[in-house]
């Protein structure tokens, strides 16, 4: 008889939350403090872009972790968030803050509605549907030049202030890094809390065994749609931050290669863990930057690394850290 006592992902629903809150606070302070330590603008720019990508990768990883769905089209929500914000700011029809809010809410609502259809299928069919949706938006943006500027994209001049704060904070690497980092931290913390809640437990159960979940009395469509909407929201937040930071959006952010990169980041980092995809994004962009200086074929090296990780190290970087941590704890005298 097995009697090993393990701490499961839902061990004591609210038990580890204070520790996670402390870590989140610490992470927030790091985000504020880091720009004082790293002063090189290039490094700060790279880290800011990395953090925005980490938010996108986190949205992909969350979907995998909580529902088992692999999205090949997560860039659609990132791109929608960015384009909605850009278009609303450009039109000047609404206050800046409302434009930013709608940049998150509209893709989230769209994600929720479309998920009511697409989460009914699973596996490759689901992945292909997400890819198709993303490509539809890509084509719309490319072809509808009058609205979205086509291949040339859209330049956006931010209004002077955002709820009383100078908009320049969004386009200065040091301050924007802190904003993006704190946003990422909050997203990770909220996702962690949610995964520890009864709702998170139900989603894990549905991911494990959808039929059994129905036979213990739960509807399975709505929880999966909510997970998809949360994932869409996270992607859209990344897109809004991208738009604010760069003051420019182009169809590239809706292209399937963007979705593919986010998926690679999530898998390399370890989608099984809340922080894994974010870790993967930072490593991915660091490696891309380092290798990009050496060879233009850096993608081939990333591809080989992905094969190695997928086959030999399926839990990703976060999984490796977790294994090492367990070994350290096991080696510690009782």
């Amino acid at each position, binding site marked *: *008889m097995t009697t090993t006592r*393990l701490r*499961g992902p839902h061990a004591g629903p609210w038990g580890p939350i204070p520790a996670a809150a402390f870590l989140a606070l610490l992470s927030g302070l790091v985000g504020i403090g880091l720009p004082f330590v790293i002063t090189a603008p290039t490094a700060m720019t790279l880290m800011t872009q990395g953090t925005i990508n980490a938010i996108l990768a986190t949205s992909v990883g969350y979907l995998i972790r909580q529902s088992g769905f692999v999205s090949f089209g997560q860039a659609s929500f990132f791109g929608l968030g960015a384009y909605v914000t850009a278009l609303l700011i450009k039109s000047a029809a609404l206050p800046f803050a409302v434009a930013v809010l709608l940049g998150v809410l509209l893709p989230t609502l769209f994600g929720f509605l479309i998920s009511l259809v697409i989460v009914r299928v699973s596996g490759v069919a689901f992945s292909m549907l997400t890819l198709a949706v993303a490509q539809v938006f890509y084509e719309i943006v490319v072809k509808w030049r009058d609205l979205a500027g086509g291949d040339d994209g859209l330049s956006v001049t931010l209004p002077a202030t955002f709820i009383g704060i100078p908009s320049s904070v969004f386009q200065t690497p040091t301050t924007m890094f802190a904003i993006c980092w704190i946003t990422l931290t909050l997203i990770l913390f909220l996702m962690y809390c949610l995964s520890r809640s009864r709702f998170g*437990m139900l989603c894990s*159960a549905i*991911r494990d065994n959808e039929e059994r979940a129905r036979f213990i009395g739960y509807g399975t469509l709505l929880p999966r749609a909510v997970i998809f909407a949360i994932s869409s929201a996270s992607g859209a937040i990344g897109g809004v931050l991208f738009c604010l930071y760069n003051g420019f959006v182009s169809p590239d952010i809706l292209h399937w290669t963007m979705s593919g990169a986010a998926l690679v980041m999530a898998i390399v980092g370890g989608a099984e863990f809340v922080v894994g995809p974010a870790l993967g994004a930072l490593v991915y962009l660091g490696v891309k930057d380092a290798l990009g200086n050496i060879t233009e074929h850096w993608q081939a090296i990333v591809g080989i690394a992905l094969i190695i990780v997928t086959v030999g190290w399926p839990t990703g970087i976060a999984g490796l850290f977790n294994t090492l941590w367990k070994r350290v704890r096991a080696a510690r005298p009782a």
Partner: protein
Amino acid sequence: MSQIALRGVGLTRRYGGFTALRGVDLSVPAGEIRGLIGPNGAGKSTLIDVLSGRAAHWSGQVFVGDTDVSRHSVQKRRRSGLARSFQRTSIFPSLTVRHQLELAAQSGADVDEVLLQLNLDAMQQVYAAELSYGDQRRLDLALALIGRPRVLLLDEPAAGLTVQESLTLARLLRDLVKNWGITVLIVEHDMEVVFSICDRITVLNLGELLVEGTADEVRTSPKVISAYLGRSAA
């Protein structure tokens, strides 16, 4: 006459041109443990699927007590007091034993009691994936039992267990459902289990109801012997 807890009327299920279940009528009185046996392909699991709402494209009516649940979803049937287990172990591998029972106990049912009754209390913090096969079968049963359903449909709960494990499970099951007043319809290939715990037995053959009676009546029925052995009783 005792109250009927589960009733199926004219249950028919077709797979293309093949009729797996042909107008089966079934009534199980409250508190009874009813065995459902028959040769391979008799329609036993199909009947359980139709009763539980798992099957699509079937005809007939299903009642739990006086409630017609024929058009109810699986979830609604569960809320009406109809629960089931599966032929193949159906649990949530990434959840601990306790957490999946807490999840299944939607109306605040006593998780501790089920853990204790099914001898799962010592492993309540263990992931289901880490359990032995026998423990997983008991967890599967616990998921169906939690909340004390009115009617429990069991599809080969002893499949894959050793003879000793099967008999232990059978005794455990009999005591539990009798104490809790649950009505049970159980499909089981292990005749020792069926004859030891069932009040009455229904025999299906080729999708039709063949015989219904006590263990002794079924054991000696020429129709049953013929269906199982392909010849008349000597």
